[in-house]
């Protein structure tokens, strides 16, 4: 699309927001199945934030987060990220592996691998719902995992959004169970993919 600009397109924002809601709902179901627990989801908050605000939204740029990042190929191209706070990541891994929770410190190899799998399933189900909704083929790549400061992890999607404008589209989901966990989705379609998504859903 020649004149697409994320900064001033209310209508496109609404569409992406709706896709985000549906995707996050599906991801919650997948998460519940994986850890065999009842997981509720609060209505996701979808926000278009300035770069400076994104770190704050996650509890500060230096908050340690687990970020899963993968590329999207097929009818649309782009990338997708799922983030969890370090503590929430420990909780989920412990639930998945049926082990006592190790709240602090670095993750073991086994825990990292479990975390990658959690990210893979959550993001996979998110993209799957997007694929069903738009009737497009969406193929995710093998995910990569990084445990680092929120600011550093977010620089990756921020740079990709940076080529379109000065804002980043963040979908915050709160999973609630015995404990409540905050998860964040960031979907970054390439410029030409916005057009395809909008066309596919009849806009």
């Amino acid at each position, binding site marked *: 699309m020649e004149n697409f*600009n994320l*900064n001033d397109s209310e209508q496109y924002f609404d569409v992406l927001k709706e896709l985000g809601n549906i995707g996050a709902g599906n991801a919650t179901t997948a998460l519940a199945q994986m850890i065999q627990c009842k997981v509720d989801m609060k209505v996701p908050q979808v926000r278009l934030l300035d*770069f*400076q605000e*994104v*770190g704050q939204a996650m509890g*500060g*740029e*230096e908050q*340690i987060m687990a*970020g899963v*990042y*993968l*590329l999207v190929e097929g009818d649309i191209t782009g*990338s997708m990220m799922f983030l969890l706070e370090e503590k929430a990541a420990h909780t989920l891994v412990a639930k998945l592996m049926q082990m006592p929770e190790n709240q602090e410190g*670095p993750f073991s190899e086994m825990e990292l691998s479990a975390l990658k799998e959690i990210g893979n399933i959550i993001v996979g189900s998110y993209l799957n719902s997007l694929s069903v909704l738009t009737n497009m083929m969406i193929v995710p*790549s*093998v*995910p*990569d*995992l*990084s*445990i*680092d*400061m*929120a*600011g*550093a*992890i*977010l*620089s*990756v999607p*921020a*740079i*990709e959004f*940076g*080529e*379109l*404008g*000065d804002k980043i589209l963040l979908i915050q989901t709160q999973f609630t169970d015995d404990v409540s966990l905050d998860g964040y989705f960031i979907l970054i379609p390439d410029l030409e993919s916005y057009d395809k998504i909008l066309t596919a859903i009849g806009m």
Partner: protein
Amino acid sequence: MSEIIKVGMADLKICKSPDGVTTLGLGSCVGIAIRDPLTKIGGLAHIMLPDSTAIRDNSNIPKFADTGIEELVRQLVAAGALRVRLVAKIAGGAQMFGAQGRANAVKVGERNVEAVRAKLLQMRIPILASDTGLNYGRTVIFYPETGDFVIKAIGKPEKVI
């Protein structure tokens, strides 16, 4: 009391000794610290992309290596720094995820670092020290008083370059 001024993503700030400037959680972005060692006026830019001319919407000056560095130097000179005495230190430009390499023909962290080096060379501002690349985030603090550029990363000892 001295103050540490915060610089956000796609942002730049200048300060004068004894104050310092900091930016938190640099990933693939690059932090460029420039100072005049005599007047002890310095500043920090946090750039995200290598080249403003490659992007249609390039009105956000501190977002790009080329325009960001030019603006930082302009503000330093306007505050009383001498252009020919300026020296730089740089940090950041990490590759946070393996997949990033596949997303872009050349890795964006690496491209950012190259663009910053090229711009500083073109402006004849020497790079005294750098800590770039690899795969982890960095928080940096710059003190124009001494020129110390403090770099913190998770699970690693703090270092000063």
